[in-house]
């Protein structure tokens, strides 16, 4: 029997990255300011988390410009959503005590 911890993804091992993926959900774009408020994180910490997840292909970042206003939109990719679902499944298995 394979231990469910093998289903855990290193990309979600930090609280901020885990929470970020939780916030993004599926097929939802969230702007940077809203993410910062929801996650109660500062700009630097959030930016680093987004950059990391973007590098591994789990999130997609879109910059919007309206006049002199710029907005940054973040959404999870299909790959990222699937990976996070697998990670959640592993957590549920572990939390239920897989050896019970």
């Amino acid at each position: 029997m394979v231990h469910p911890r093998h289903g855990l993804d290193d990309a979600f091992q930090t609280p901020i990255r885990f929470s970020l993926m939780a916030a993004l959900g599926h097929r939802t774009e969230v702007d940077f300011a809203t993410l910062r408020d929801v996650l109660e994180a500062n700009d630097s910490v959030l930016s680093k988390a987004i950059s990391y997840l973007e590098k591994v292909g789990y999130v997609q970042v879109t910059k919007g410009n309206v006049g002199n206003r710029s907005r940054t939109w973040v959404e999870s990719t299909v790959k990222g959503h699937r990976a996070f679902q697998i990670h959640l499944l592993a957590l549920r298995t572990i939390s239920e005590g897989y050896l019970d």
Partner: protein
Amino acid sequence: MESESDQPAKRSAQRQLKTYEAVRSRVKTQGPSRAFALFTLWSAIVVAMYVGVFLFSFGNRTVSEAVDAGGYAWNGILVFPILVFSSLASGARERFGIRTKPPLGHWIVIGLVIVGFVVLAWLSLSGVDYPWALNLLMMVTIFFTIASRSIRQLRDKRASNSDRWEAEPLNRSARCSTALIGLVMGLLVATSTQTWFPLLSAVVMMLLAVMLMGWQTRWGFPSTGYEWAPIHWVAFGITISMLFLMTILLSRTAWITTPISLATGVFILLVMLSASLLPLRAGHKQL
């Protein structure tokens, strides 16, 4: 048997799952908001009306029938507002902190609607009659494809009110753009009964293309759409409804005389001019 060494992992996993639920709950209270749902619903109405008016005005008739009725020149009255609307809407969408993206099924249905649209157009040009109810079916299909999620969200009393759509006086560039939109729409309608209307319509489209090049500037339509409050969207809705109605009446009847088109054009201009000056002072309006 579960060993003691598994306990920390179990507790840690449970904590993380609680964090997940807490974050999801917080996000759901933030949005997508009722304002976003209302805006999407309104957009669905505009697009569905455009499709319906187009098909009703120009569909189910041969080219020679259309030419006898005055041709396709009034298409300019129909196309201008929808192009402007899509630019304005793209800016308005930037207001909302959380936006949903439609699923793949949505795009498949949109693709089918487009194919249906092309088929009906081809049938018209080929002189093949088709039941007019197909026009209605296209309208209803496109409306529900775009609006269904928003309708469900609006029916959910728990939907977020986080995006407060505040009514504030427009900045100068948005004010000018709003007035300009009214001027051009009013001009198109006012001159629609003139023989040189097709030429004017073509010039307007060229100017629109130039305006759209300034997409990202503060003078661009997206920036104006971002600034607009519900009152501006209501005014725009009134004026494009009039443009859509004029398109149908001009292409299908002989009711529209020069005085009527002039009066309607002036009305449209006044509506958008008034909207450009409102609100007079900052206020709060929650949707």
